[in-house]
Every structure is written in structure tokens, then in C-alpha cells.
């Protein structure tokens, strides 16, 4: 599978990634939570037949480290990894992948760097519009695509973006933005789904309404909100620089100083400092690395990614040491 974070994208100073997820179920087969083994196998065989070019990885057969790695890179949900059902991931060299037998029979998804929701949607359609799959979708003209949870009924579309907003978090202005988002029916979450702290100053913005609007309308409204947040974040970065002066620049150089010299660092501190260095690079205070370099580091300092790079299981202490080494090596070129 292609890594979305290794490439550049529009508005990448604020928008880390854009993701589209389409939920689809097959008619005459109970949804995964209600399906027996035979029905789950039936779902897998329909998809295998329709998408012969994709590889199927059963969650039960995958080692834990591999599953955690897939969660950290946002390829699968933790629900899919935990599922005792016949859950699997369909993937190949292309960007889009399919989670099978999670909450719905199919969750087609695609992630792009920067603000590129339309591209991600088009990418999902390459799978979604498959003739053999389309014949089987559970669909009514009244309700659209039928999903296990009524919050996804209709288009089954979730358009989301990971947004890096350190200046809005530091100034506290993020709260009023979050308020207005909730009034507009837009969901906001921390970095890895619900209830996670946004230590790296990342928030995830997504649509809540899936029924009554077309896919294009949903994508356009999310894109519009994210565009506005990006403008506000840039203004606030400029504000902080003008008002904070040397103290603001100092904060960024200190973050870089720690990352260049650390010998042992936990994930949370690493994410926070890398986030500050990223802001410094985006604002032209620091030089020597691209946004995608930094996003690659941000992704790889997570526990499972780090252990994959090291090629073995590490204890928490060993991880903190390996993380420090990895960061020092990769951030050396930043000045």
C-alpha cells in the first residue's frame, strides 16, 4: 500500500491529510454484528470475486504488531483489529483499501496528504462503482445505502481531515471554532478518533450528516470549513509571531534543540515538540525539511511504527531510546 504521508499536498501547512470512507452493505446478508460465520464468509467471497486484484488479510492471522501498525497509519480502525468476527482488510498497491466485516460489510477508504477530499472520494469510487459489488448493495431510494448504524445511512460517506492547529490551540481560540463546528453538524475529535488527547495539536474534522445531502454537498461543506480553519490558523500563527516576538521563536528553537539532542523520549512529548518544529518550518522560521518529512517523522515515532522500523518487539524503555535515536537522525537536517 502507498504511504499517503510521504507526499506533498495542498494546504499541507495546516491540513495533514484528507480521508474519505464509504460504508456499504450487501442485501440479504445480516450486518456483521448479527451475521453468522457463513454469512461473513459470503461477504468476503463476494468481495474477493469482485476485486480479484486485491489481497485479503484476515485480522485473526495478523500479528498484533502488524495490526497496531495499521491502526497507527490509519489504515484500519481499532474496532476492526479487536474484532473476533471474520474481519479482514483488502488492499493492494493502490491507495484505497477496504475494511470488511467491521461495523458494516464494507468500509472503503482512501487517504491523501493535504486538503484533497475530492481526490480521495474519486479514489474510493474506483472500488465502490465495481459492477459486481453494485448489484449487491443494500439500498433503497428513500434511505439510500443502508448501514448498521443509522448515523451512516444515506450516502454512507464520512469525509474527514486531520488538521494541525498549534497556534489556535496555544491562543485558546480553538474552543470557539469547535463550538461553531458542533452547531454546523461537524464532528471534531482528537488525533486518533474519540477521546484521545490532541498532544500534537491535531484535530480531526468530519461530517455528521450522511442523509439528505449529496456526496458533493457533504464534501464541499467539509472542505469549506477546513479552508476557513486553515485561514484562521495562519492568521493566528502570524499573530503569535508578532506579539510573542523572540519568545515565540525561542519556543520553536527549544523544541528543535530537545529533538536534536534527546536520548530518550516518550510518544507524547515527541509529538508535541515535533508539532512545534512543524509550525516553525511551515512559517519559514526553520529550514531544511519539507512538511512531508515532518509528517513522516510524526507517524513513525508511534510505538508500533517504531518497532516495525527496528524490526523487533521493544520494551517501553527501549522504545523511548529508539524513538530518540530515530528523531535525532531524521531531524538533523533541520536548522
Amino acid at each position, binding site marked *: 500500500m502507498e504511504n499517503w504521508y510521504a507526499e506533498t499536498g495542498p494546504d499541507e501547512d495546516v491540513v495533514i491529510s484528507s480521508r474519505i470512507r464509504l460504508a456499504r452493505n450487501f442485501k440479504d446478508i*445480516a450486518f456483521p454484528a448479527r451475521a453468522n460465520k457463513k454469512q461473513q464468509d459470503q461477504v468476503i467471497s463476494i468481495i474477493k470475486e469482485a476485486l480479484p486484484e486485491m489481497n485479503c488479510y484476515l485480522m485473526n492471522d495478523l500479528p498484533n504488531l502488524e495490526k497496531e501498525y495499521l491502526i497507527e497509519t490509519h489504515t484500519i480502525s481499532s474496532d476492526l483489529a479487536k474484532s473476533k468476527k471474520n474481519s479482514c482488510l483488502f488492499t493492494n498497491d493502490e491507495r484505497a483499501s477496504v475494511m470488511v466485516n467491521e461495523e458494516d460489510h464494507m468500509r472503503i477508504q482512501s487517504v491523501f496528504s493535504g486538503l484533497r477530499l*475530492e481526490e480521495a472520494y474519486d479514489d474510493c469510487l474506483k472500488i465502490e462503482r465495481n459492477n459486481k459489488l*453494485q448489484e449487491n448493495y443494500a439500498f*433503497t*431510494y428513500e434511505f439510500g445505502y443502508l448501514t448498521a448504524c443509522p*448515523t451512516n445511512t444515506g*450516502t454512507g460517506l464520512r469525509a474527514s481531515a486531520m488538521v494541525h492547529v498549534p497556534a489556535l490551540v496555544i491562543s485558546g481560540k480553538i474552543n470557539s471554532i469547535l463550538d461553531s463546528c458542533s452547531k454546523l453538524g461537524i464532528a471534531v475529535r482528537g488525533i486518533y478518533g474519540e477521546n484521545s488527547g490532541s498532544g500534537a495539536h491535531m484535530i480531526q474534522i468530519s461530517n455528521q450528516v450522511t*442523509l*439528505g445531502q*449529496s456526496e458533493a454537498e457533504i464534501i464541499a461543506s467539509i472542505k469549506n470549513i477546513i479552508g476557513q480553519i486553515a485561514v484562521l490558523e495562519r492568521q493566528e500563527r502570524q499573530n503569535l509571531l508578532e506579539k510573542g516576538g523572540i519568545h515565540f521563536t525561542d519556543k520553536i528553537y527549544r523544541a528543535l534543540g530537545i529533538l536534536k539532542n534527546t536520548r530518550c523520549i516518550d510518544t507524547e512529548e515527541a509529538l508535541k515538540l515535533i508539532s512545534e518544529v512543524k509550525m516553525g518550518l511551515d512559517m519559514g522560521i526553520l529550514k531544511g525539511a519539507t512538511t512531508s518529512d515532518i509528517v513522516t517523522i510524526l507517524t513513525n515515532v508511534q510505538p508500533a511504527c517504531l518497532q516495525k522500523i527496528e524490526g523487533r518487539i521493544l520494551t517501553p524503555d527501549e522504545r523511548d531510546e529508539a524513538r530518540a535515536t530515530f528523531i535525532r537522525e531524521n531531524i538533523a537536517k533541520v536548522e
Partner: protein
Amino acid sequence: MLCERCKKNEATMVLTKIINNKKTVTNLCAECAREAGNTMQMPLDGLGSIFSGLLGLETLWKGGPIQSIGTVKKCPSCGMTKEDIMREGKLGCGDCYITFIDEIRPLLRKIHGNCLHHGSVPNVDEPVKVRKEAKNEAPEKSPVEMLQDKMKEAIAKEDFETAAALRDQIKELQKEGM
């Protein structure tokens, strides 16, 4: 689960009787549930009243001291009841949307602000590009016609429960002027 009365057909209804404050629960197939309805001397002038009778709950047993009697609707395909859906917050299969259509519509309206799909349609070719003005290409048949076909199919299969649900859906759509 097999019907506890005839032990032949799949049980799709739950008959709950409360007699002298004693509750009994019986899983029945549609056929036996209808017969149970007959013995209760409920007006049976057509498809709708069978179910409205069975679902209308309060009725009197001929000469018996029944306080209340009722059946719990179950999805014929996956066996989910309304209580299951409320407890889990999720539906069991696509057919649940038809079986529990009266409950689903207000629920969807509450979540999404409306309950009519405006997005893409399977097998209707759309350019693989997000269109600025997405218009729902009209299907060859209107939604009502599609549902009427389905209802005829259900009646031919003697699946009256689905047929009744479809009939209600058609009525609702006609009201909305579809």
C-alpha cells in the same frame, strides 16, 4: 429459532401474553401468530388489520381475564426486535429498515434533520468526479413503483409482514408527493 407452536417455520414474531399478571412469551411464525390472532377474535378484514391487531396490544380475550396481549415485531430476516435496536443503537440487516420503518423514519430525521436520500444510486452511472451540482438521475421507475413491485413480490411469497411494511412506506411516499 423455530416456531414454538408448529415447530416447522422460522419464528418471526414474539407473542407476549399477560394473564392474571403472569407474563408468557412465545416465539411464533407469521402463520401461527395469525391463527393466535384469530382465536383472539380480532377483526381480520385484510392484511393491515391483522398486523395492526397483533401490534395494537390492548384487546380482550373472549371471556377470559386477559389484561393485555401483544406481539413484539421481529425482523423476518435477522430476528432483531425494536428493543434490540434501541439497546444496541444499530440495525441487524437491510430488511430492518423496512420492518421498523415507522421507528426508523423519525430516528433518521432526528439524526440527519431529514430522512430522504439525495446521494448517489447504485448502477446509475455518474462521472468518477465529484460534481458541483449533484443531481439524482431519475431511475427508470419511481420509488413508489419500485416499492409496489417489491410489495407484489412479498405478497406472492406470502411474506405479509414485509408487504405491510412496504405498503406503509408507499403510503408515506405518496403523502410526500414522490
